[in-house]
């Protein structure tokens, strides 16, 4: 049996390979989008010379292969290039268009990404304990009225579109009972509590969207184990049903639960476009959609890469965490 350290190293390596493959796919896909930035910005009446000039200045005329490697090399050094949309402004402002200057992708991306991470964390801190508790209770009182109510309500929540849930919450918690602001006006200089207050409604919307899956997986994987001989043994020791489930079933049910949690965490970061738009929350999803609209390729690529890295990293963490829940691997013979 391999040591845990070796397995983690192996997974990390595989994660890097995946990320590389994904970067190729992203680059190819983004460059296959119809139209290009020069045409999008100059409109119908553009002269071929003007288009060519802009293409020249942002390097669109080089062959894709060269562009990919230039992009990759720069990205590896933390420089995701310059936002096309900002090129002219920065030249106008007289500053360098290179890394760190006004209009670099990193400058646009980082604050947005921080906002998204904040929102995701708030949603995760509410939804993960909530779904675990709901799931454990549903397993404990399986087939009872409580179990059915929880199942039906979480399923209804997940089956409704995000924006619908969002408007319901706005109606209930911002309009009828004005507890939270309907628009998430988040900017630098807010205190933590102000920020939390502003993010509450989108976070609750996201919680409703992810709880069902995690809760149902918790319930199912615990119930799955209830027929095992060691659960019967625990019951025959006269332990309370709650203790049987929390102490004896849950530790062995963790691996699938962790995986579902990781998938949902990834969703909280990459799948929030609609919620961000509804609440005008300045997160990475909005930036992404705006950039696609104007063919701002460097930003689109960087967003995709961040999304991909998030997925890979979270799945990697989930893999490692589920390996660590297996005592056979933690304590070899």
């Amino acid at each position, binding site marked *: 049996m391999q040591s845990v350290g070796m397995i983690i190293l192996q997974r990390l390596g595989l994660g890097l390979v995946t990320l590389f493959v994904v970067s190729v796919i992203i680059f190819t896909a983004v460059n296959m989008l119809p139209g290009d930035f020069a045409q999008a910005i100059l409109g119908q009446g553009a002269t071929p010379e003007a288009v060519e000039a802009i293409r020249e200045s942002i390097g669109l005329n080089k062959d894709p292969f060269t562009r990919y490697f230039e992009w990759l090399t720069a990205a590896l050094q933390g420089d995701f290039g310059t936002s096309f949309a900002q090129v002219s402004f920065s030249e106008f402002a007289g500053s360098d268009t290179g890394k760190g200057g006004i209009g670099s992708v990193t400058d646009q991306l980082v604050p947005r990404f921080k906002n998204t991470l904040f929102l995701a964390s708030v949603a995760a801190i509410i939804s993960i304990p909530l779904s675990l508790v709901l799931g454990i209770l549903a397993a404990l009182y399986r087939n009872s009225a409580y179990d059915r109510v929880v199942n039906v309500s979480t399923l209804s929540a997940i089956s409704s579109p995000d924006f619908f849930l969002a408007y319901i919450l706005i109606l209930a918690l911002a309009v009828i009972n004005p507890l939270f602001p309907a628009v998430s006006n988040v900017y630098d200089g807010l205190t933590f509590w102000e920020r939390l207050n502003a993010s509450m409604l989108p976070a609750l919307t996201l919680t409703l969207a992810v709880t069902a899956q995690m809760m149902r997986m918790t319930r199912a994987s615990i119930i799955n184990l209830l027929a095992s*001989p060691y659960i019967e*043994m*625990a019951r025959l020791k*006269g*332990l*309370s049903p709650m*203790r049987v489930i929390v102490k004896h079933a849950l*530790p062995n049910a963790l691996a699938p639960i962790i995986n579902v949690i990781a998938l949902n965490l990834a969703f909280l970061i990459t799948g929030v476009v609609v919620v961000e738009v509804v609440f005008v929350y300045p997160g990475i999803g909005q930036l992404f959609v705006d950039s696609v609209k104007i063919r701002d390729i460097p930003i689109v690529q960087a967003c995709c890469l961040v999304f991909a890295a998030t997925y890979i990293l979270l799945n990697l963490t989930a893999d490692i965490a589920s390996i660590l829940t297996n*005592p056979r691997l933690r*304590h070899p013979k």
Partner: protein
Amino acid sequence: MSEQELLLKVRDLEIEGRSDETWSPIINGASFDLHKGEVLGMIGESGAGKSTIGLASMGFTRDGCRISGGSVEFDGIDLVNADAATKRGLLGKRIAYVAQSAAASFNPAHRLMEQHIEGPVQHGVFSADESEEDGIELYRKLRLPDPENIGFRYPHQVSGGQLQRAMTAMAMACRPDLIIFDEPTTALDVTTQIEVLASIRDIVEQFNTAAIYITHDLAVVAQMADRIKVLLKGDEVEEADTRTMLSNPQEEYTKSLWAVRSFQRDQKPMAPASETPVVSLKNITAAYGDGTIKVLHDVSFDIHAGRTVAVVGESGSGKSTAARCMTGLLPPMEGTIEFDGVKLPADYRDRNKDQLRQAQMIYQMADTALNPRKTIGEIIGRPVEFYLGLTGTAKRKRVEELLDVLELEPKQYIDRLPSELSGGQKQRIGIGRALAAEPKFIICDEVTSALDQLVAEGILRTLAKLQDELGLAYMFITHDLATVRSIADEVVAMKEGRVVEAGPKDVMFKPPHHAYTDLLLSSVPEMDPDWLDQLLEERGVDNIGDAASSKI
């Protein structure tokens, strides 16, 4: 013993089980008494309801079962009508349970000691520290190696026999008045079993604990029980004290159980030295994985036409690995395998169809060895078509012939699925599938160990008959020496991947033996209730089981 106080009183206990939305009876009225310090043996074939009664004595039924009638009274408490909290207060504290598979019944996520002290702490009998100290003391009494530290290991780090003893210790943790032992040694090797038996008996006597000992092995129950109760398909057959039951069984069914071990086939003379053996293993060394851990060392033996060679040894001794080498599933690192004097390619992928056809296998678990989605006709028909090229009517005719040979009415069985057969019938289909290839040589890997004794005997008789008719050579992998006695011509004893002794059966079963063969033979329980006492007296507690095995 009966002058002691009455502890458990079961009267007309009826239990029903649910299948397809209807309740059908599993236990049709069982009654017995159990006094303090008394051991009641409960015996019967699988499906007799032994475990169900055992659990019901704790007021517990598995999901899908219910107590539909009768009463269970433990120390004056009515367990059938008691509420869940009352029962929880008794379970673990005054009534404890030892399960069949300790490996599956210990929670893999917690250390042994954590699980040991959980009962006493939750029931408020001992504090965690007291219970831990007591646990170490119990481990010592049960003669577990390294009692101070073994509790801090996880279940997967401890061997099966040790786990079974640790589970007995866990059952003892609250000093209960009653322990239910549910086939505690069935999954163990004979040499390990004897050690567990000795420790269970010892500790039950020391603490004057009453016990219900459930098993299908008569010889085991003879050692453990003061009284024996025989069950058949949910009905009581009879009950008497152990010696009376053994010497003078009243009912026909009990007599037939007792008679099972009488099947013995005459040993055939050794094949002449000049005869070319059907299969010959020559100096086989084999390993799994990257080859650093060898599982077979220089193993050689021959199997002649029409003879049965029994390969015996504990689990992990390399019996099944030798079979895997013969079939080519595990190409050996060194050595050759000859078939009719011709060297076989090491890897099955390099063997031609005819070579593959000659060696067939019958597996231990007929349940898992048959594809549940194929009918019997398809399962047996597949090798008929593959090896003999028969199709259509010819194939069906051949399958019907085979079913006939196996004493299964072809018309009735050919279109059934494996799930519609009993355990013994499934094993017959396994034999049929092997025969369909018309081999010269069949490897039987623990073919009877998952079956009840009466059914197992039927399978052995069928195999013996087929051998006489077709001149088949068998390699019989088993750890059950009773099976060896009844069917083998020659015996090969293996230990840690080496052949320690080999020879004709009559020689092997008569002293002087190699020390290991002697240990194996002497560890097989006999029907005599004094057998364990005598053995312990003869050898001393330190010369049985693993302890003795590691000295060799």
